[in-house]
């Protein structure tokens, strides 16, 4: 049934995609279909009569079959966690990315990106395939030298993140495109997904959910000179039912090039509703001539943000402040060695207690190298450590890509990850090995497949350890078609670049 639904939605999507540009002078589209076979495992809470658990030497309780049990004094039943069932998902997703133009008005274009997805397993165990048809974008765009206007389902990319809405957006660029004035408004989408906040798919825990979509309005002002880019933006979201604010924020960004090989960039956001400075960062980058290397140093601050229709903002989440740096150098042709690191510390929560110690700072560090100096080979290796609040991880990986012909590449990948958690006894040592094939046919069809093996050892002092050993399979197919010459499978973004537009 699910397969027939998928086929039906695919057929409708393709027909719609093809039908739109029939009367147009040109179109370009890309069909991308992917499959993933995946599994994961969690826990099932269970209970046992308090009389059936035994007390251990350290004062904890164990069930008869060895599970650590929680037995507050005086209760009749104790609770414990068993390894949950092995959940297997088989998501299949087809994405149609289409663009059509030539409607009789110069500069008018229709852009759509529609996703059709389902999970071939009996239960939807893997997130993202509900609902089965999702319109990621669909807007009519009118472009002139100093104007870009869009109407439909569209997005703005700002310091606030990737914000989607159904409405209109206009960007005017006077003074030879040195000044940008942006305005947008409409009905907002939820964060991180192309669905309205009222969608049932966004409420798995049966929490409070707004009855109406929020209204969104925003405005921005940007400057673009050869060595200075700057932008200030304001965005407000309103609950139309109560007229209460959902969010109200301003932000600015600045990107400077004081010298030809130095870039300084940064910005900050301010939560007008809460009266708090939010996430901010500043960094300076030095780029050595001829791609010899790059050095970046900076500082940043991260503060989480919650919509005001939730209660979470009233729990006073605190930000952390971090200093970071990265360095990459190319000592010989084809070789790149890179390292990066960050240290961070949370602001005082005013909630610490002697009853337990919780980390409030941490650090992370990465070291890696890539070599592509041989004609048909590319090698990469990496090592990283992440130590801080909640958990830590240490990893190693290696990758080799062999490209025997222009059409075929084969990649082998191996990785080891060691990961203890701070809040739950659950040390894991995961090793994974993968083989991937990418093949491009003469007609521009691209195929890829990957098979990956996971071997995992989990360590706990009771029986609640579980095995995650598994095989995973990925496969994909993409195909470009349209009225302009095919670009050999290159991404449609590149294909839609007007010819003659120089690469900066």
């Amino acid at each position: 049934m699910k397969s027939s639904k998928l086929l039906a939605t695919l057929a409708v999507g393709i027909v719609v995609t093809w039908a739109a540009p029939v009367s147009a002078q040109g179109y370009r589209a890309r069909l991308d279909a992917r499959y993933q076979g995946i599994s994961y495992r969690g826990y099932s809470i269970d209970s046992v009569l308090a009389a059936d658990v035994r007390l251990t030497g350290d004062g904890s309780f164990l069930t008869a079959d060895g599970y650590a049990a929680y037995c507050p004094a005086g209760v009749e039943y104790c609770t414990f966690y068993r390894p949950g069932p092995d959940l297997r998902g088989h998501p299949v997703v087809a994405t149609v990315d289409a663009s059509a133009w030539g409607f009789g008005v110069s500069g008018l274009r229709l852009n759509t990106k529609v996703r059709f997805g389902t999970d071939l397993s009996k239960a939807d165990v893997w997130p993202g395939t509900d609902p089965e048809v999702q319109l990621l974008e669909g807007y009519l765009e009118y472009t002139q030298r100093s104007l870009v206007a869009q109407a439909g389902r569209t997005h703005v990319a700002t310091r606030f993140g990737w914000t989607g809405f159904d409405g209109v957006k206009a960007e005017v660029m006077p003074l030879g495109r040195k000044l940008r004035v942006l305005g947008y408004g409409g009905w907002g989408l939820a964060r991180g997904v192309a669905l309205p906040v009222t969608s049932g798919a966004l409420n798995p825990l049966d929490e409070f959910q707004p009855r109406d979509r929020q209204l969104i309005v925003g405005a921005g002002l940007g400057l673009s000179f050869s060595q200075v880019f700057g932008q200030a933006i304001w965005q407000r979201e309103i609950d139309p039912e109560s007229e209460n604010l959902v969010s109200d924020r301003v932000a600015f960004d600045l990107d400077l090039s004081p010298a030809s090989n130095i870039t300084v960039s940064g910005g900050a956001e301010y939560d007008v509703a809460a009266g708090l400075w939010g996430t901010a960062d500043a960094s300076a980058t030095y780029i050595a001539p001829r791609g010899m290397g790059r050095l970046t140093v900076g500082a940043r601050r991260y503060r989480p943000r919650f919509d005001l229709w939730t209660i979470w903002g009233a729990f006073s989440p605190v930000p952390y402040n971090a200093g970071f740096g990265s360095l990459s150098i190319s000592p010989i042709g084809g070789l790149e060695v890179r390292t990066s690191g960050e240290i961070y510390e949370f602001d005082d929560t005013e909630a610490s207690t002697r009853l337990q110690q919780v980390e409030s700072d941490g650090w992370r560090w990465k070291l890696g190298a890539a070599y592509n100096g041989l004609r048909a080979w590319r090698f990469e290796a990496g090592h990283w450590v992440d130590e801080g609040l909640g958990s830590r991880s240490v990893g190693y990986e290696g990758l080799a890509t062999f490209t025997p012909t222009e059409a075929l590449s084969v990649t082998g990948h191996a990785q080891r990850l060691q990961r203890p958690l701070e809040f739950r006894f659950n040390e894991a040592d995961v090793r994974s090995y993968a083989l991937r094939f990418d093949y491009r046919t003469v007609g521009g069809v691209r195929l890829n497949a990957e098979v990956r093996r996971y071997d995992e050892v989990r360590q706990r002092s009771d029986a609640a350890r579980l095995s995650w050993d598994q095989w995973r399979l990925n496969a994909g197919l993409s195909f470009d078609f349209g009225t302009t010459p095919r670009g050999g499978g290159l991404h449609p973004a590149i294909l839609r670049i007007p010819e003659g537009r120089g690469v900066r």
Partner: protein
Amino acid sequence: MRAIKLLALLAVTTVAVGMGWAPLASVVISKPFPHDKHAGLFGCDACHGGVTQPDASPYPQPTFCAACHDGNLQPAIDWTPTEPRPQSNLRFEHGRHIEAASNECADCHVVAGELPMAGQCRDCHSKSEALNSPSVWHGSDFRNRHSAEAAAAPETCAGCHVRGDCLECHQPNPATGSPGYHPANFLSEHPTAAYTRELSCSDCHNVRSFCASCHLQAGLTAIGGIGSRYHDAKQNFIAGHGQAARQSLESCVACHAESDCLRCHSALSGRVNPHGPGFDADRLRDKNPSMCSVCHGSSIPGVG
């Protein structure tokens, strides 16, 4: 009103900074060089041989031109080398491209003196995945540090990208395997990255549809309360969870519903005050009193 004032202040500051830097933006404007008149005299490398040399100018010195343009053989000229282009996030090494093109500059520079068109790039880079990955174009790790530049100077991205590219990660495809945006095996690694928000997860993932739905399937959500000792690596976790919650509340809400916390943190039951540093009750009440009424009912402090 205060928001408008702040916006105006920001705008004025930005304009002022921009104007202050404007003189730096001025570059030497030179007339287009008549490549066609020189093409028959010598090859490209005679003037532009420096493109393959680190630290060398890609343009000839005026004295080189004066060898002919001395006022006798040819008219004297007043020519100044064009300033080098600012380094961008786009990786490019002329040496490697010249090698790949068998020293045929025209393979890319179809019109002498003009930058290559997108078509010239794709002719080669579409030949294999190894030539077409983001790290080839922008260098490694660019995906993790592109946000500031993308927000401040989107036009630099728009030279090659459309927003559909952004959606590849910002609206992740559930059937895409790893490595994609995240490295391989990220599913095992994600608690570490999520607890400390190395990146802003919610820029691409909806915490309800993505995190909570998966945790629900795995039995990791706290429907029924948090008193059942899931966090068993910490003695007395429930009694001291406040610090962890304020540090990583986004991780908490990936498993816990509001109702879990309201059992204690509510003026209507439990009465454990959750408000901490930076909490401005008057301000939030003005902006959205509905949020207050979830815990305070109709008796919101400061109202009535």
